[in-house]
């Protein structure tokens, strides 16, 4: 009788371990930051590096890859800024590249060691956030646009201005992200989405305040489900996996780049400062620059690859034609990257506080 309590606890413990025992072999390197050259530690967005890419790289190079995931650029930056992170490759978004360069968290990339860099689409070569790609090699990209359900809106939606139409009151969601929300607030008035002008930002704040009454809420998690089911008519949305699924599952759901402009995001591979596996890091960069490897990002993760040569290697070509993954080139003419607003960040933050509190 006495042992029963222990038994229960012990059983609880062992069955958790047993349940997950088939889960793999590694995590032995966990305690040590000085990985030997046989290991590569990657810190990336969840879902942006398909298993097929990691497995292929491990098989070919014999390097053991550990991938950890983060929920935001800010989390990733704070972990690296504390030092001793132990990561060799990180995957910051475009504005995060700028912030990390300012803080010396990234290693300069030696272009002469790269193979296949010319496979990249021109918009990712020498981008506004990292001139000469000195610190980053874009890997995945997408847009911030509008997801809508035709059954619910009763017609076509063309731009941000529809998201200020009282017809859709209580049926619209905006992304729960400051800079993403400001894209709409700025572009709907013909202003640049990357402005640093206090007056422009203040105009956008007023516009967002005006919009708030019409919204069902700010939502970055399940907006695609809400639009897909018709519970919401319109949502500001990121292209890629979730939006692509919603579009594929329901032909009344569309993803568009707003006519007032459009913006791009890209998540790049960078070498973390202080890495002790530089050669492994370059092997990773070169491996992921190969068209057939980059194509796996589209096939296995429903995300757009920055690699032009990869487009024809994508097995399921309907994914290349899906505007919720690859935005049509003509819609991207006015599109720009959302970059670090620098000192103007405080204007955004103050405005966003007012919007959130109203």
């Amino acid at each position, binding site marked *: 009788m006495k042992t029963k*309590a222990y038994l229960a*606890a012990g059983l609880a413990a062992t069955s958790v*371990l047993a349940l997950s025992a*088939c889960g793999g072999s590694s995590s032995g390197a966990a*305690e040590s930051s000085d990985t030997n050259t046989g290991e590569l530690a990657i810190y990336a967005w969840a879902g942006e590096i398909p*298993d097929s890419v990691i497995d292929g790289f491990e098989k070919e190079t014999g390097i053991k890859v550990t991938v950890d995931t983060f*929920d935001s650029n800010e989390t990733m930056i704070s972990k690296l800024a504390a030092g*001793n992170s132990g990561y060799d490759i990180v995957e910051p978004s475009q504005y995060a590249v700028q912030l990390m360069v300012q803080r010396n968290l990234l290693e300069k990339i030696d272009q002469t060691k790269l193979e296949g860099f010319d496979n990249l689409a021109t918009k990712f070569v020498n981008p506004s956030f990292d001139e000469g790609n000195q610190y980053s090699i874009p890997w995945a990209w997408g847009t911030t646009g509008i997801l809508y359900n035709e059954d619910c809106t009763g017609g076509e939606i063309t731009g941000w201005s529809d998201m200020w139409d009282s017809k859709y009151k209580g049926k619209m969601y905006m992304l729960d992200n400051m800079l993403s929300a400001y894209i709409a607030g700025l572009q709907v008035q013909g202003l640049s989405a990357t402005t640093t002008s206090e007056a422009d930002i203040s105009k956008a704040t007023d516009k967002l305040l005006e919009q708030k009454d019409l919204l069902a809420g700010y939502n970055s998690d399940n907006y695609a489900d809400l639009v*897909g089911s018709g519970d919401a008519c319109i949502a500001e949305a990121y292209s890629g996996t979730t939006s692509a*699924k919603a579009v594929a599952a329901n032909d009344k759901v569309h993803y568009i780049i707003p006519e007032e402009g459009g913006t791009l995001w890209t998540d790049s591979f960078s070498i973390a400062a202080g890495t002790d596996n530089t050669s492994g890091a370059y092997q990773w960069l070169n491996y992921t620059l190969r068209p057939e490897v980059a194509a796996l990002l589209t096939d296995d993760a429903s995300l757009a690859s920055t690699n032009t040569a990869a487009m024809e290697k994508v097995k399921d070509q309907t994914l290349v034609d899906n505007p919720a993954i690859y935005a049509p080139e003509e819609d991207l003419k006015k599109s720009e990257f959302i970059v670090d607003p620098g000192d103007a960040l405080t204007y955004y933050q103050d405005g966003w506080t007012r919007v959130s509190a109203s």
Partner: protein
Amino acid sequence: MDTVMDRVVSWFARLVFVFLYIPIIAVVVYSFNASEVSYRFTGLTTRWYGELFHDERLLETLRTSAIVGLLAGLAATAIGFLTAFALVRYRVRGRAFFLGAILIPLIVPEIVLGVSLLTIFSTAGIPNGLLTMVLGHIVITLPLATLVPMGAMAALDPSLSEAATDLGATGWITFRRVLFPLLRPSILAAFLLSFTTSFSNIVISTFTSGVGTTTLPLRIYSTLKTGLTPELNALGTLLVLFTLLVIALVGVQQMRRILASTN
């Protein structure tokens, strides 16, 4: 009049109960949904369970969570028990201060603890990993692991140990043969509570995880950007099943104890 009121209250209680369990039921139902989008139910499938068992990287996060939970839970339970024992048994100086201090981690926002742990570990040159995560989780589970056995100890009849002493038992034998068996359920409760708290923690894990130590909640949380997969529903269902199993085992054990004492 009383009966009408009773009926209203009892129905209300049932509604609350249903409301509490709707999310869990939804997770189980959707884990068998053939469609990838959660708002549409297109048929039954066990596909997601198959994918789950082949998703080594997801299972590895589960393993990390289990290991961290076990280590932190065991450590917190041991330290918490000793702390509780000292605080209840001995009138040490600064007792009130110490008692207050041990509860502070319950009140301080986790994000503050997380950031300061990150700073401390990096200043001390300890690389983030299993060790730092276990230490971080001990910080947040220790208050619970101390409070639970403390309550049980306070409820113990002091004459029990006096009687043992009268019968010639030494302090150690009294502890081992009288006090410890009586406190065992509370120790088990403290461990389970610590384990669960550690297993579901996101904030502290965010700041103390390192290479190769992504936990399950961290993985799920970071998946929000590109969208959750039905695979996670399958995993959630298995975890619910597992929890029910633990409750059943502990419950059966407690029932036996009660039945034995009535005979």
